[in-house]
C-alpha cells in the first residue's frame, strides 16, 4: 500500500476509479461580476405552477378541498354560508342515533352481517355522518383563517393607538415638568450667580 501511494504515476487505474465532478460547478465562481470573462451563474429554475409530475404521480399546485364522497347531509344556505355549529350538532345527534341502531341490529341479527341491508345501511349511515362532519371541519378552515386575520388586524390597530397615546402622555408630562420648574430654575440660577459673586469678592478682598 505504501509503495502504491509513493508511486502514483505507476497506478493510473486507481485515479480512474473516481469520476470527475460534473462540469457545471465552473458556472458558479466566487469572483463573478457579470462581465464576459466572469459571467454570473445561471438563475434557478422558476417555481412550478399548475399540473406537475412527481415520481410518476400527477399532482397540482392548486390547493383545492377534496370533494365529499357520498351523500351531503348538511345544508348550504342560498348565500353560500353554512351554519357550522348548528349543522355539526345535528350531525352529532344523528351519529349517536346511528350508533344505537347499529348496535341493536348487531344484537338482534348478528349472523346477517354482510348481507342484511339494515346492517349495511347502518354502517353506511354512520360513515356518511362522520365523513360529513370532517368535510364541515375542512370547510370551516377558510372562515377560521379570515377570523384570525380580522382579530390580528384589530389587535395591531389597538396596539398602535395605545402606543401613540402613551407617547402623547409622556410628552405632556415632560412639558409640565419643564414649565412647572421654570420658576425653580430661575431661583436656582440667581442663587448660583450670587454665590459666584460672593466667592469672587472674597478672593479679590483677601
Amino acid at each position: 500500500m505504501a509503495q502504491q501511494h509513493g508511486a502514483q504515476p505507476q497506478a493510473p487505474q486507481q485515479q480512474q476509479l473516481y469520476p470527475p465532478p460534473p462540469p457545471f460547478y465552473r458556472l458558479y465562481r466566487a469572483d463573478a461580476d457579470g462581465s464576459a470573462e466572469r459571467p454570473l451563474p445561471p438563475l434557478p429554475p422558476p417555481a412550478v405552477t399548475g399540473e406537475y409530475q412527481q415520481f410518476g404521480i400527477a399532482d397540482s399546485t392548486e390547493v383545492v378541498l377534496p370533494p365529499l364522497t357520498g351523500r351531503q347531509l348538511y345544508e348550504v344556505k342560498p348565500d353560500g354560508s353554512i351554519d357550522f355549529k348548528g349543522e355539526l350538532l345535528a350531525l352529532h345527534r344523528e351519529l349517536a342515533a346511528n350508533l344505537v341502531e347499529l348496535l341493536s341490529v348487531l344484537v338482534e341479527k348478528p349472523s346477517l352481517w354482510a348481507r342484511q341491508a339494515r346492517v349495511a345501511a347502518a354502517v353506511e349511515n354512520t360513515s356518511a355522518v362522520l365523513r360529513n362532519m370532517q368535510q364541515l371541519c375542512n370547510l370551516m378552515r377558510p372562515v377560521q383563517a379570515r377570523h384570525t386575520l380580522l382579530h390580528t388586524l384589530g389587535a395591531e390597530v389597538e396596539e398602535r393607538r395605545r402606543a401613540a397615546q402613551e407617547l402623547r402622555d409622556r410628552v405632556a408630562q415632560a412639558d409640565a415638568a419643564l414649565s412647572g420648574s421654570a420658576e425653580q430654575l430661575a431661583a436656582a440660577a440667581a442663587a448660583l450667580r450670587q454665590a459666584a459673586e460672593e466667592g469672587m469678592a472674597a478672593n479679590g478682598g483677601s
Partner: protein
Amino acid sequence: MTAPPVDLVSSLQEAIGRLNAMLFNYLGALQRDAPPQPVKGEALVAAPKTYDVLAQTELMASDLMAGLKDVEGLIQQLPELSGSEAEEVAQAVALLQQNAEASQELQQELVAASAKLAQLQDAHGVLAEAALRHRPPAGGTAEQQKTKS
C-alpha cells in the same frame, strides 16, 4: 405523543378521528369477543374465557361516551360564524385602512416625542454645565482657610 392542537377546529378534527378509531376498534372487539348465545335453546359449550368480556365492554362503552361528549363539548365551543365572505373581506379592508391611519399617527407622535427628548436633553446639559461652572472647588476652600489662619 404530539402536543394537543391549540385551535378549536384542529381539536374537533382530532376528536372526530379518535371517535372514528374507537368505533371500528370497539365494534370489531365486540364482534370477536361476544360470548355465544343459544339459537333454539340448546345447551352452550362453554368457551374458554381469557379475560372479563363484561368489564371490557363497560370500559369500551364509557370510552365511547367520553369521546362523544368531547366532540359535543368542542362543537358547543364554536363561535357563531355569521357573516358572509364578502362582509369579512370588507371588514379586513376597513381594518387595514385604520391600521395605516394609526401607523401615521404613531409616526407623528414619535417625531414630536423625539423633538421633546432633544429639548429635555439640551436643558439638562445647560443645567449640568451651569452647576459645574458655579460650584466652588473643594481644594480652593481649604487653601482659603490656610491663608486666613
